[in-house]
């Protein structure tokens, strides 16, 4: 071989420099400030057009009952209607397919009165029988539909006294169920879809009654929706009555963040999901893009401590970790603009959230004195020890969000400053459930999206999965009681108490709210977040 490696390398670096310079110019072109909130306003809405939405991943399934990944739910939410809807600003449950409903005082029986004249896109009627078939089938999906199955825990059955009345009953009080009926997980699908096997539903898709119908999809590539003609039963929250504005919506999977961002700025797509802090500069450079953000309701990103581990059984250690974290610094360094530090274990967009941020303020001095008082002495390498045991914890994390690793590295530094050693342990996504069930962890990093405070019961009640191994105590009766309380004021008091107990005892450490960030072209208007911070496209229009 006569080529000269050295000159090859020199030439290589020259070409690298040139191309990088070109690329930088490309990024830097254009100007103007673009970060705004929502594209409402200019001009009157008009019908027609195709919206192209680029998402980062594909869940491998087109059945909203079986999928929980945001990227796929953006599309599937549009093809199914729900019995109820939830107001994103107040958290209130409002009519959609059900015109009205009654909840029994013991929160065990829910009677829905359906709107007449609604059909699935295959022409079959949306009636009480369809409701029964859907709930019966969702139960049978089991672990394949963990969200839906969880909402229907203790489901006894659905009675259908007449064509438009569905009475759903449960073994135990289940106050969360009303909110659950507003989610995509319990969105209604036609009988023809219900009778398919779970795998068929995944690969063929489902027939819903939504403002858009599934028109086709290619695995790993795209999901296409078309407007449902004659649609006239939209949620009471929507601005427009009748059919949607857009004729067609194309969700296309673009795994590379840089390509997603560039495609939006160069006008090849109308909107993108999963915008990170790193992508924001490029988005702002284009001048034609809005950044839309909303915190996901539910359990915030937290260090889910394993309360049964010897080190973590000590409340002083847990509380010290809680106040040793500078949440503001974490948010500003790692998260997209608009993200907020946790003010409770629940995100502020969750109904019944209460602000207990007073207990979550950064106070390194307090952390140190708590640990001193508990007998943890600072050792030679800065890590505290007690009776020869190092104050060292491992945090398990999964690469399901780009922010996870930088956040944990920052947390590692912040805790090091007060003498707590953190080691990070990356786990495979396929391990989540396994690790949770084995209990073989000190702490896990994660969050759960759910627009109802009952998520606290399913996550922290010691009578359920109890992933974080809390000891049975004062929290349990509070969690059980809020699930049985229909009266909003009484439930608020109970949920406040639960949040206070979890934070005060630092059972797990709330850190930051997960914020959904979308990049949306200024040509797109009224692309709204629904209560669970996914999107609603019925009112969306393009100018």
């Amino acid at each position, binding site marked *: 071989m*006569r*080529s*000269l*490696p050295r*000159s*090859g390398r020199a*030439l*290589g670096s020259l*070409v690298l420099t040139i*191309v990088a310079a*070109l*690329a930088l110019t*490309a*990024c830097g*072109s254009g100007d103007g400030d673009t970060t705004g909130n929502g594209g409402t306003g200019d001009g009157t809405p008009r019908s027609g057009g195709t919206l192209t939405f680029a998402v980062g991943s*594909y*869940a491998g399934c087109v059945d909203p009952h079986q*999928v*929980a*990944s*945001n990227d796929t739910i953006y599309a599937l939410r549009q093809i199914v209607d729900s019995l109820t809807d939830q107001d994103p600003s107040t958290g209130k449950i409002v009519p959609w397919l059900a015109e009205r409903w009654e909840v029994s005082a013991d929160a065990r029986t829910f009677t829905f009165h359906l709107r007449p004249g609604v059909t699935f896109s295959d022409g079959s009627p949306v009636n009480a029988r369809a409701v029964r078939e859907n709930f019966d089938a969702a139960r049978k999906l*089991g*672990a394949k539909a*963990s969200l839906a199955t969880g909402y229907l825990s203790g489901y006894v059955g659905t009675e259908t006294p007449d064509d438009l009345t569905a009475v759903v009953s449960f073994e135990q009080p289940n106050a969360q169920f009303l909110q659950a009926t507003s989610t995509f997980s319990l969105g209604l699908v036609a009988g023809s879809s219900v009778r398919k*096997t779970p*795998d068929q539903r*995944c*690969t063929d898709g489902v027939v819903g009654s939504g403002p858009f119908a599934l028109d086709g999809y*290619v*695995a*790993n*590539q795209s999901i296409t929706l078309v407007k449902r003609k004659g649609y006239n039963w939209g949620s009471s929250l929507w601005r427009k009555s009748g059919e949607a504005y857009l004729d067609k919506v194309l969700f*296309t*999977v*673009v795994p*590379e963040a840089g*390509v997603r961002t*560039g*495609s939006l*700025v*160069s006008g*090849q797509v109308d909107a993108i999901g999963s915008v990170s802090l790193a992508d924001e500069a490029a988005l702002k450079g284009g001048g034609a893009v809005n950044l839309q953000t909303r915190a996901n309701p*539910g359990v915030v990103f937290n260090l*889910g401590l394993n309360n049964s581990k010897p080190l973590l059984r000590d409340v002083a250690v847990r509380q010290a970790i809680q106040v040793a974290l500078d949440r503001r610094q974490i948010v500003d360094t790692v998260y997209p603009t608009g993200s907020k530090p946790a003010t409770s274990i629940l995100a502020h967009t969750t109904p019944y959230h209460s602000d207990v941020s007073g207990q979550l303020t950064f106070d390194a001095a307090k952390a140190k004195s708590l640990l001193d008082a508990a007998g943890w002495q600072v050792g030679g390498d800065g890590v505290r020890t007690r009776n020869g045991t190092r104050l060292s914890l491992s945090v398990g994390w999964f690469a399901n969000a780009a922010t996870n690793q930088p956040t944990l590295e920052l947390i590692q530094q912040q805790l090091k400053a007060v003498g707590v050693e953190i080691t990070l342990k990356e*786990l*495979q*996504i*396929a391990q*989540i*459930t*396994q690790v*949770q069930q084995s209990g073989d962890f000190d702490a*896990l990093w994660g969050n*759960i*999206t759910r627009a109802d405070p009952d998520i606290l019961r*399913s*996550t922290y009640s010691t009578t*359920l*999965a109890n*992933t974080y191994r809390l000891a049975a105590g004062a929290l349990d009766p509070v969690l059980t009681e809020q699930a049985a309380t229909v009266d909003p004021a009484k439930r608020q008091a109970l949920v406040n108490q639960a949040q206070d107990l979890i934070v005060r005892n630092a059972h797990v450490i709330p850190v930051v709210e997960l914020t959904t960030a979308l990049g949306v072209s200024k040509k797109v208007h009224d692309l709204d977040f629904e209560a669970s911070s996914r999107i609603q496209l019925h009112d969306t229009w393009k100018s």
Partner: protein
Amino acid sequence: MRRYVIRRLAQAVVVLWAAYTLSFLVLDFLPGDPVSAMAGGGLDQVSVDPAQLEALKREYGFDKPVLVQYADYLGRAVQGDFGNSVATGQPVTSVIGDALPQTLVLTGAALVLAVVFGTGLALAATYTAGRALRQLLLSLPSLGVSLPTFWVGLMLVQLFSFRFRLLPAFGNDGLASLILPAVTLAVPTGALLAQVLAKSLFTALDEPYVQTARAKGAGRARVHLRHALRNAALPALTIVGLLVGNLLAGSVVVETVFSRNGIGRATVSAVTVQDIPVVQGVVVFGALVFVLANLAVDLVYPLFDPRIVVASATRRRSFV
């Protein structure tokens, strides 16, 4: 010749079996399992009912001992049945069948570009008389081989799609969307080909028959193309198997950067959720392509150079 063919076929079968077994072992050693991945598959960490999870594992046969699972899978694989994808329920054969055309178009286009530009570059480099230019041309292949495909793809998109808006940045819809990915994939492959071809061209040009041809008064170009290239093409042919492997591996990256549907993308998604049947199917398919490409080369080779069969036959006899 028949013996030669049979021996090559037997080797091919062994390679396929080894690929299958090895991938099964690797997947089995990985922590986690596909059912847990499916149950916890969203962004969120929802707790799943252990009893339901067990039921699901039973349904897919993941509760059986590893050896039984292996025998099960292998028994069916021999009959061409690779089972269904755990993530989607689709038969593995149709997962591969659906993705195959796109990957074939992409790798085919890239191969053509690689051969054209690789050969062109090797010829130009060996033909050039100027020392500086020759060194420059000769250094291009090592540059092409060393640039990360991922980075090349992103730079091309940045320039031709985002800056000049000439070509689409993603998708597999028509010729326009094929250009950037095919060029990206052709860079490392073409560079590899150029490296090998340039080397054998130099060797060929030093051979006595070239001197003879020159002495007989053949022009430089004629000697280069007629005599040297023909002989130098043989060593280049041996690396076709390597090129095919290169293209398949590169398609994983290129299909991800350019959001193209294909075997590479299907592999990435399957690996992420440990979709064992799909990964197994793809591995066997990849091995099959590799084996077939090498087999084809081995079978074509004797046609160019009969000494090969004779040599192998002699060697065999001496062993018996």
